[in-house]
């Protein structure tokens, strides 16, 4: 009765590529697809473990089949059959173009300027897209100590564009971070002890114009204005602007809101559920399909 993967592949184009309705998907699915939509077909993408990885894998199966996926352990353009649990999972290396190492990914690819999009997580973010994955409170005696940078500070500043996924809470959306792991559009100039636009601090370097292009949270999607200040672009279906503002530690610009975050399409959800994470490693559970979609699947 269960269909083979090959039979499921045959079905993809029969599943309507039209938006599902709220309630027909869960929040991690919406977020994974929102991440996927950040990827362009001509991107070289460098993604972190977790939902970013799930999102860019989905993109590689949907809207950005020609995008190059890089994993920091040294994997270039793996053609993945099973979702990796980590950036150095051999699953991610399947049929890759080259298998280098960290010097390749952070030196030859990233610092050399080949990476066009980084997609990363964060524990807290400031108004200018600066990210903290290190600690809250006094650095030497923190109230919370996180894992530390990993590739965050490298990828977040040397990729041409960078986007983040962050859990939205008042204490995570801040005017200023206690510790800036990865500077955003504004940052400290330690030479003059001034808070400045990053373009000035990074003057004349090749990376001066790189920076955050988007943030996906559990409540909405954000962009940055010409001054490098974050604003709300869309609210996830069912979330109000008031709720968003209540979960933000600074006076958030909501004047550019364009409406709701687009719902994932049935086809996107089908791919995500059947081909990206059918093992339910990152998705908490398999959401049932609506009866009409299930009918298409059953009919084969």
């Amino acid at each position, binding site marked *: 009765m269960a269909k083979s993967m090959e039979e499921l592949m045959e079905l993809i184009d029969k599943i309507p590529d039209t938006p599902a309705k709220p309630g027909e998907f869960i929040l991690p699915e919406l977020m994974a697809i929102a991440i996927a939509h950040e990827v362009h077909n001509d991107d070289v993408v460098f993604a972190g473990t977790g939902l970013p990885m799930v999102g860019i894998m989905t993109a590689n199966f949907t809207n950005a089949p020609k995008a190059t996926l890089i*994993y920091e352990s040294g994997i270039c353009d793996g*053609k993945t059959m099973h979702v990796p649990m980590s950036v150095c*999972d051999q699953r991610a*290396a399947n049929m890759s173009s080259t298998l280098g190492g960290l010097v390749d990914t952070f030196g030859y690819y990233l610092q050399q300027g080949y990476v066009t999009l980084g997609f990363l997580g964060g524990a807290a973010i400031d108004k200018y897209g600066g990210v903290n994955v290190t600690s809250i409170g006094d650095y030497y005696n923190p109230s919370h100590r996180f894992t*530390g940078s990993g590739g965050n500070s490298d990828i977040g500043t040397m990729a041409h564009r960078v986007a983040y996924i962050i859990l939205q809470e008042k204490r995570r959306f801040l005017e200023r971070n206690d510790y800036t*792991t990865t*500077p955003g559009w504004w940052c400290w100039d330690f030479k003059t002890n001034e808070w400045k636009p990053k373009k000035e601090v990074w003057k*004349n370097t*090749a990376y001066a114009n790189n920076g955050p292009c988007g943030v996906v949270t559990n409540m909405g999607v954000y962009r940055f204005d010409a001054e490098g200040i974050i604003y709300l672009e869309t609210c996830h279906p069912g979330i109000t602007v008031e709720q968003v503002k209540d979960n933000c530690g600074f006076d958030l610009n909501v004047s550019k809101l364009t409406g709701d975050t687009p719902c994932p399409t049935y086809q996107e959800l089908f791919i995500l559920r059947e081909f990206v994470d059918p093992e339910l490693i990152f998705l908490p559970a398999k959401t049932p399909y609506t009866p009409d979609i299930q009918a298409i699947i059953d009919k084969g």
Partner: protein
Amino acid sequence: MARIRGKSKTAEILTLDAAVKKYALSGSQIAFSGFTGFNRNPFAFAWEMVRQGVKDIHSIDRHGSCCTWLLNAASAIKIFETDWMGWGEMAGKLDINLGRNYKAGKVILEDYAHGAMAMRFLAGAIGAPFIPYNAPLGSDLYNEKYDALGKAGLRDGKNPKIAKKKFIQMEEPFWGNGDTVLLPAAMPDLAVIHVAKAGDKGTAHWRGVGTIDKEISFACDKVVIIAEEIVPEAEMRKYPEANQIPYFVVDAIVECPWGAFPSSVPYYYDYDAPFMRVMDAASRNPDDLNKFLDEWVYAPASWEEFLIKQGAKKLLDLKAESTGYSTRMLRGKKPAPRMKMPLSVARSGY
């Protein structure tokens, strides 16, 4: 930085026990192979270190791993100079034992970033004292206030393995390219490198994801290779392009099948996510942790006993298929599907 050697090293074949005794000295600076908790962690070596009571390790690394998890569990790490302090599949979360030891003031954390540590090991490997890197200006990683080893008074030049500065920001002098950051080379006392195969002369090789194990091997004073199998050196010479480590950097070779468990060795066996969950659960309170250490670290008579205790089913399930990994191991809530072709290739080619 260079160490002038008047003669070539000659690798000796040792038991796990003897290699730990000879090379894993309390107080020394050690780097382990692999990346995160998933890939070629020389776990058997760290396990034997804990059994022998090695202490006060200065771990210098690109990640937390199964090795550092265990060393932190046994409070054997005094300085952790790295960039990502999670481990294994507990991605996104701090290693709980590390957090506990840090809160208790028993460990110094020195924060860098993946790229920065990769460059520091590259510099160490090529014998350069430092390397310029586009370490992000304005990041607190490169804020002099947050130099933990400096604050602890350890940058006084007395320890030849700790640089006098965490970093130096300087104006780029050749191209008018703004400011750049110099990072000191990493050049630990000991590299412990888990590989697939080693020749009996020391030439070593692995397949699959790369990490920076070649760089680490060259950056360290001493190099211990832990191999799934030791083969005649002649065997390694048939396809020299595939070998990463020339024999003359190797001090000791240890044959230790399944020695990277619960991490993976591509084309040999997969990682054991359920066992990593057991480790993580154990770390949540000291009693459970002690029970775990007693049961899994101190009780087994040998690494082989440890493996036998894991059971035959696990060894069967983890054995790699020709893709380099296993689809028989339950990693999430559902079994892995069998696929004939990646979806991206089927739909869009290369």
